[in-house]
C-alpha cells in the first residue's frame, strides 16, 4: 500500500495544494521554513490522527482560518481508499473514509502505519519518561487494536480519579475506591502489553545499533514499571490495587494518582549503563536512531502493510556510511518521504526518487522518478 496523492487545504502554510507521490521514494527539497515538514506532519496525521510535533490540532490550521483539511488517497491492491481528516477550531476533528463519516477517529489507527525520524528523536533518550511512554504507546496502538480500549479507559479513569483527588472532599475514600478498580484493571493490561512489546523492541534495537556502529556495543530496551512485573494480568491487577491502598495517604495529600503505568519508564541501557546519563551526545543520537529503526522493524513485522517512513531533515546529520545504510534500509521497506535542503544530502538515492521543490507553501515536482516501480 502507498499514498498516491495528498491534498491539503488551510493546513499550516498551505492554502490549497495537491501533490501526487511516487510509490517508493519522495524527496522534498527547499530552504528552511518553507513547508517541507508540514507535508510529513500531514501524512503522519493520516496515520495516527495527530501531529508528531506534539502540536494541538488548532495549530495545524492555517493562521486566521476556522478549519483545515488533509486528504490522502491510499492505493492498495484491492483498490483506492480516500481518507479525509477535517480539523476545526475549538471542535473535534472529523474523519471520513471514502466520503463516509466515521464514528471513531481511532478507526484510522493501523490502517496506514508510519514511523517518523526527526532531529527531535534525541529527546527520546535525553528527555523525560513521558516521551518514551508515548513512543511505546504509539507503536503498540498501530499494531494492536485491543490495546486502544485499555489505553483510552485507563486515561479516562486516571482523569476522573485525579479530578476527585484534587477536589479535597472530606471522607472521599468511598468515592475513590470505585476508580481504583478500573485503574488497576486497565493499568495491568497496559503494563503487560508494554513489557511484551518492549522485549521485542529490545531485540530489534540491539540489532539496529550493531548495524549502525558495526561495533560490539550491547543495547537493551527495558520496560521499567514502578510495580514489580507479574506474568498474568490478574495478579498484576491485585498488586496494583494493594499499591493504591498503600499510597492512599500520599495521593490524598498530593491530589494526584501516584500508582500506575502513567508513571512508568522505558529504560535504555548500553553495555549495562543508562544511556541517558552515561552516553556521549553521539551515542545518544545513535541510540535514538536505533530506537526508531526498531519501531520500523516491529511495525513492519506486526502490521499488515509496510509502514510509511517519514524522514524529517535527518540525512544531513548522518555520516556517509550511515546515509548509505539508511538508504539501503529504505529501499527494502515501504513508501518513504524525506526532507532536506539540497539533493546532495541524499547521495545516489536522488536518482531513484521523485523530487519536489518546496517554497513558501508552494510545491513543484522537479523530477518524476522511476516509473513502473
Amino acid at each position, binding site marked *: 500500500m502507498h499514498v498516491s496523492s495528498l491534498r491539503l487545504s488551510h493546513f499550516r502554510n498551505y492554502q490549497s495544494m495537491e501533490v501526487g507521490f511516487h510509490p517508493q521514494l519522495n524527496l522534498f527539497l527547499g530552504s528552511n521554513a518553507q513547508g517541507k515538514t508540514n507535508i510529513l506532519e500531514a501524512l503522519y496525521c493520516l496515520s495516527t490522527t495527530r501531529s508528531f510535533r506534539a502540536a494541538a490540532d488548532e495549530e495545524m490550521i492555517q493562521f486566521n482560518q476556522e478549519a483545515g483539511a488533509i486528504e490522502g488517497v491510499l492505493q492498495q491492491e484491492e483498490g483506492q481508499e480516500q481518507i479525509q481528516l477535517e480539523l476545526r477550531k475549538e471542535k473535534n476533528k472529523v474523519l471520513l473514509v471514502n466520503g463516509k463519516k466515521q464514528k471513531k477517529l481511532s478507526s484510522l489507527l493501523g490502517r496506514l502505519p508510519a514511523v517518523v525520524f526527526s532531529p527531535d528523536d534525541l529527546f527520546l533518550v535525553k528527555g523525560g519518561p513521558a516521551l518514551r511512554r508515548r513512543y511505546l504507546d504509539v507503536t503498540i496502538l498501530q499494531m494492536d*487494536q*485491543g490495546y*486502544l*480500549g*485499555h489505553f483510552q*479507559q485507563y486515561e*479516562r*479513569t486516571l*482523569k*476522573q*480519579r485525579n*479530578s*476527585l483527588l484534587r*477536589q479535597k*472532599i472530606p471522607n472521599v475514600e*468511598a*468515592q475513590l*475506591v*470505585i*476508580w481504583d*478498580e*478500573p485503574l488497576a484493571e486497565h493499568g495491568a493490561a497496559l503494563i503487560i502489553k508494554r513489557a511484551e512489546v518492549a522485549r521485542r523492541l529490545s531485540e530489534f534495537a540491539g540489532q539496529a545499533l550493531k548495524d549502525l556502529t558495526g561495533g560490539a556495543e550491547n543495547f537493551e530496551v527495558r520496560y521499567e514499571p514502578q510495580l514489580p512485573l507479574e506474568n498474568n494480568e490478574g495478579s498484576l491487577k491485585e498488586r496494583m490495587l494493594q499499591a493504591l491502598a498503600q499510597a492512599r495517604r500520599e495521593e490524598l495529600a498530593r491530589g494526584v494518582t501516584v500508582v500506575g503505568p502513567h508513571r512508568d519508564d522505558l529504560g535504555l541501557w548500553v553495555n549495562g549503563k543508562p544511556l541517558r546519563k552515561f552516553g556521549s551526545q553521539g551515542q545518544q543520537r545513535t541510540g535514538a536512531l536505533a530506537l526508531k529503526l526498531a519501531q520500523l522493524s516491529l511495525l513492519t513485522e506486526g502490521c499488515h502493510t509496510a509502514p510509511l517512513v517519514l524522514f524529517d531533515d535527518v540525512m544531513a546529520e548522518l555520516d556517509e556510511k550511515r546515509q548509505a545504510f539508511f538508504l539501503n534500509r529504505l529501499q527494502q521497506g515501504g513508501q518513504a518521504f524525506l526532507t532536506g535542503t539540497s539533493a546532495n544530502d541524499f547521495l545516489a538515492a536522488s536518482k531513484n526518487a521523485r523530487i519536489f521543490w518546496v517554497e513558501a507553501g508552494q510545491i513543484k515536482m522537479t523530477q518524476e522518478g522511476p516509473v513502473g516501480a
Partner: protein
Amino acid sequence: MAEYPPSLERLLHELEKLPGIGPRTAQRLAFHLLKQPMETSRALSSALVDARAKLHPCQDCYNLTEETLCRICTMSTRDKTSILVVEDPSDVVAFERTHEYHGLFHVLGGTLSPLEGRGPQDLTLDALVARVKKNSNLKEIIVATDPTVEGDSTALYIQQLLKGVRIKVTRLARGMPSGGDVEYADESTLLKALEGRREI
C-alpha cells in the same frame, strides 16, 4: 458575512445551545420554522413551556411524570421485587420497549463523574438506599448504567452502598450485540462476551 436581525440572532443562539446542533443545523431549523405559519411556532413554544412546567421527577423512582408518582410506580401489575437502576429517563423508555421487564425503575440522573463535578449527592443515590430499606419485598437490584468507565464505577459505588443490605445486586451483561459480527468485534467486547457466556 451578512448580519442577522437581532431576533433571528437570538433564535439561532438558543438553538445552538441544544445537544447535537451546530450553527448549520440551527440555521436550517430556524429558517424552516420561519417559513411555516405562525401557528407552528406557537404550538412548538407552548408544547415546550407546557412540558417543562408539568413534568417533574416521580417521588419514588425519579422518572419523569406529571403526577406525584409515575405511571410505572402506580401500576399494580408491576413486579415490586426488583428495581432496575438507570442513568436517565430515556433509558426507562428503552427498557419499556422490550416489554420483558416488569419490575420497577430508579433513575439516577447520570453517573458519578468528578471531571464534570458530579458526586454522589448529585445523583438520587440516597433515595435509592431509602427505597431499598423501606421495601421489604425487594429481592434484586439490577444496575443498568452504561458500560463506560463512569457507568461501571457508579455501579461499583451502588454495590458498596448496598453492601449491608441482604439483597441481590446484579449488573447488566455485556458482550456481543445481536446482529453483530464476531469477526469485527473489538477485543474487549469479545472478552466480555466470553466471560459472560451461557450454556445452550
